[in-house]
């Protein structure tokens, strides 16, 4: 769970680092949920579900039934099917955007942490500039510029993830550059490219991956917020966020329309946070000997 605690009366016991943290049942439950959501989203077309787009005006906001396990929404569409297809969209944006951020940010971070100097100042400065803008405003402005689409949304969210990934990669690189195996490689005359790719990258990838998972959680939330306001994925495609936004209209009659996708989103975000946090505790290169 959270990495912080543990009463540290162990000054006398001088433990180097708690590498052997047991991954509790919560961790595995999170993994289980993630696998479930992924499986369901990928194989949605093969599942025996009612159509997610067929509207049935006679069965609007229907309660749970055998025909519709989770009822129907405001336009009579099957809620479960919509949840599953919504998962697809939320996950697509949620996964692709951080990948973009990770790739660009990770590269920038490693390069600036390794080469230092003016390049580093330039990179860090640019990131600071980017971070000065209220992110939602930036997204909205750019979307207004390029048009509302899943691709554009993913792209701009990816760009906004760059600074954070850059920071993580740079911090990891700074720590690792001083370790003996890097100095040894340099002494052996290895080229920069070789050191970066063979020595540093494998080690930087570990904390970056943990951070990636946390990033997925953040992006799912941001995309959800935008879609909630109708400014994210363009209708008629819907992600969990848009479903929650639509459900808002029916809060007084059928609150489940908002809370079902909300629960799905919450559980997914929580799972990514749990796993990412646990992995981060394990892979932080600042801990450990050498």
């Amino acid at each position, binding site marked *: 769970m959270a990495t912080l605690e543990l*009463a540290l*009366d*162990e000054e*006398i*016991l001088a*433990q180097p680092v708690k590498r052997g943290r047991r991954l509790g049942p919560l961790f595995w439950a999170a993994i289980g949920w993630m696998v479930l959501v992924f499986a369901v989203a990928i194989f949605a077309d093969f599942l025996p579900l009612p159509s997610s787009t067929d509207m049935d005006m006679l069965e609007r906001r229907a309660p749970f039934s055998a025909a519709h396990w989770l009822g129907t929404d405001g336009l009579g569409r099957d809620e479960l099917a919509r949840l599953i297809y919504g998962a697809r969209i939320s996950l697509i944006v949620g996964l692709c955007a951080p990948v973009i951020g990770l790739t660009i940010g990770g590269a920038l971070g490693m390069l600036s942490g390794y080469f230092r100097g003016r390049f580093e100042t330039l990179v860090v400065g640019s990131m600071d500039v980017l971070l000065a803008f209220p992110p939602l405003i930036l997204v909205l402005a750019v979307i207004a510029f390029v048009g509302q689409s899943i691709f554009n949304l993913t792209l701009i969210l990816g760009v906004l993830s760059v600074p954070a990934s850059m920071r993580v990669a740079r911090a990891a690189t700074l720590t690792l550059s001083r370790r003996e195996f890097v100095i040894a490689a340099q002494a052996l005359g290895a080229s920069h490219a070789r050191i970066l790719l063979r020595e540093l990258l494998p080690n930087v990838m570990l904390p970056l991956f943990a951070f990636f998972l946390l990033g997925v959680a953040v992006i799912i939330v941001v995309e959800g917020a935008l879609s909630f306001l109708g400014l994210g994925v363009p209708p008629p495609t819907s992600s969990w966020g848009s479903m929650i936004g639509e459900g808002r209209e029916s809060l007084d009659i059928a609150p489940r329309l908002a809370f079902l996708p909300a629960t799905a989103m919450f559980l997914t975000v929580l799972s990514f946070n749990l796993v990412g946090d646990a992995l981060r505790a394990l892979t932080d290169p600042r801990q450990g000997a050498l």
Partner: protein
Amino acid sequence: MTDRVLLSIENVAVDLPTPRGNLRAVDRVDLKVGAGRTLGIVGESGCGKTMLSRAILQLLPKKAKLSGRVMFDGQDLVSLDPEKLRKLRGRSLAVVFQDPMTSLNPVLTIGTQLIETLQEHLELDANSAKKRSVELLAAVGIPAPEQRLTQYPHQLSGGMRQRVAIAIALSCEPKLLIADEPTTALDVTIQAQILDLLAREQRRRHMAMILITHDLGVVAGRTDEVAVMYAGRVVERAPTPALFKKMRMPYTEALLAAIPKIDAAPHTLLPAISGRPPDPTRPIKGCSFSPRCRYAAGQCHTEKPPLAAAESPAHQYACFHPIEIAAGVPA
């Protein structure tokens, strides 16, 4: 002066659970301190002397397990009600830690740290507390005491800070003062001053004192009795003059030899004790000191020597091959 026993440590053991196994930091120690008397506890780092002092004060880490009794003024501190214990601490039982830079709160003024103790235990009002604080600071030899009240610890030198810590400890007229390596973190030139200050105050107030140190030279002439600790046990205990004149434990001899002597010839090799203190999580069969002892033989490696009395019951040691040495008290 009656030799009333003020503090009696009875069969005290401290165990710390670690991932590598149980760590016995203090191994069944028995010690007594008489009212107004000074006991010196000497040993290398890791011998358990600090743990022992924390055990007396009941300030052990949460995971530590304490067994035995600590009788202070007729009450067993181990089983004492926490609120009563809190009232004893600072009032009858005081402590001075090793490093005054870390033992004084850096964001509170000296005055606050002095006055709060006075107000807590003696229930003085603000003005009286202030006056008394100034008197205390003057008594420990701090110039311009009124100004110090509003200063912060980092504005004072190391020696001054330790004097402040001593003033805090003495503020409520304690019956027992525990000084845990009070001079280790200070310049050598200041060390003697601080030790003299402690000795002087102790005599003036008829206070009992436990002086914990790794330096045998520190306890010479300043303590009534010395206990030498090694690997969590007391290995030799004697009235101070007897310890130096007729030490029995080879470890004590080695400790004494390791003190630089001012009258030695230049470039004299300092005889360090070879080897390192044992890993407390892996207790050694036999005498804990045997791997490093010059005189170790047969039985030393298989049995733990019990603490036995020498010719006088006040002098005890734990060794199968004690030495008969007449050593001079170091300069």
